[in-house]
């Protein structure tokens, strides 16, 4: 699964630390999610979607091998 978290963050012009604070997670979590090392829960994915005001599918995209 790939994600567009970095792009969404760039659109909003916020840092990883700022996003982490808004969502209520650590900066490491944001970093690992962006790098695709950690897949967040549905709850966290929905929180991202709500914050960026886009559907979840626009942030987290399934790949062919998923």
């Amino acid at each position, binding site marked *: 699964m790939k994600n567009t978290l970095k792009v969404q963050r760039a659109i909003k012009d916020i840092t990883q630390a700022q996003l982490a604070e808004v969502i209520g*997670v650590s*900066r*490491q*979590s944001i970093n690992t999610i962006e790098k695709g090392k950690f897949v967040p829960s549905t709850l966290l994915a929905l929180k991202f979607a709500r914050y960026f005001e886009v559907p979840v599918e626009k942030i987290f995209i399934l790949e062919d091998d998923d």
Partner: protein
Amino acid sequence: MCIFYLPKCKIKFTFGRVNVAKCKFVLMKTILPYPFRKVGIVIFLISIIVSFIGDIDHAKAGFYEGYHHLSYSSEESMVQYIERNGGLIYTVQEQKTFDWVGIILSLSGLLMYVFAKERVEDEFIEKLRMNCLAWAVASSWLLFFLIMVIRGSTRFEVLYALQTQMLIYVVLYVYQKKWKYGV
């Protein structure tokens, strides 16, 4: 019927039949506030110092043993040789006390570190904890097995086994958090 409640775990015991429905186990649940993490590190460092002080005699005996073998002196025994060179510092009882204090302090420090909260507790940290716990259990048991095979003995001290397991867990956790996934 007895119902036993824990913060995030509900187990219903009914006439010996265990109903674990709706039971949400949270392994490695953090129960101590964040400052305990630093207290744990300090206590663990103190335990290392205590262990070093307590092991002076072991080091001294090891050194004399090597020196005694090198000098090919068969006229006097090892004990006589050590006595002639000033003897050991501690009595057996004092040595045991040092060992005991060292292991208790070490376990307390590690336990505090393991069960203390992070600044921000989230699902990534929870996953990291679970991952490190699984690796620590597997690798420590592999280590014990190898030691038993090499030494040819099935005897091991429970407290030292616990200490090894926790130490592996902490090392793995710190490595993964600070370096592998750290920025």
